[in-house]
């Protein structure tokens, strides 16, 4: 079983972080899971996330990543709402 699962860390910031009341979770997902799959899973588990995902960017290991990016064991995935620096 274990070789079919990978573990990823998911980080949250700003509004979604507050909505979820957490800034980081650890998640076991099947091998082959993409960024899009992960977002779908998160939305299902945390329906409060739904209002943020449309405009959300995602970073994998601290670089912006497309929705089709396949995740690997140990990846750090970050859910990034629209930025507002400066």
């Amino acid at each position, binding site marked *: 079983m274990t070789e079919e699962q990978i573990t990823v860390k998911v980080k949250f910031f700003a509004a979604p972080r507050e909505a979820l009341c957490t800034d980081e979770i650890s998640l076991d997902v099947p091998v082959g899971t993409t960024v899009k799959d992960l977002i779908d899973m998160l939305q299902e588990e945390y329906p409060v996330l739904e209002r943020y995902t449309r405009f959300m960017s995602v970073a994998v290991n601290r*670089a*912006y990543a497309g929705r089709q990016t396949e995740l690997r064991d140990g990846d750090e995935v970050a859910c*990034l709402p629209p*930025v507002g*620096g*400066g």
Partner: protein
Amino acid sequence: MAQKPFAITSEPLSVDDVVARLRRPTAGAVTTFVGLVRGVTEGRQTLYLEYEAYPEMAERELRRIGDEIRQRWTTVEEVAIVHRIGRLQVGETIVVIAVSSPHRHELFEATHYAIDRLKEIVPIWKREVWADGSEWRSERRQPLEDEALA
């Protein structure tokens, strides 16, 4: 410890400190951009701003902006960008950008690019707090992907 040219900090910012992060003495000119907390936005009085960042990635994206600038404006020698996070009061400095070159040409344009790009890609978030409420604010709507950043 040497001061990093691209940094996120919770300490108050000084323009001189950021300019000092540009090391090469051959620079003949330096432009700076200083972003301050405005007292009034869209007719509402701001109490304070709360900034949050994904620091490890934000510093990487700031460095990317420096690289992009030196590619586009080849006379530019060095770039330093330091952004503050945490609670900032009206009038406090949010961000300082310094760009250096042997000559002044292109510096203004490059500095303008730096602040626009920062607002576009660097993972930093701002919450405006008023007397009667607060909101996370952004000028952006489109999700970013690395291909879109090339």
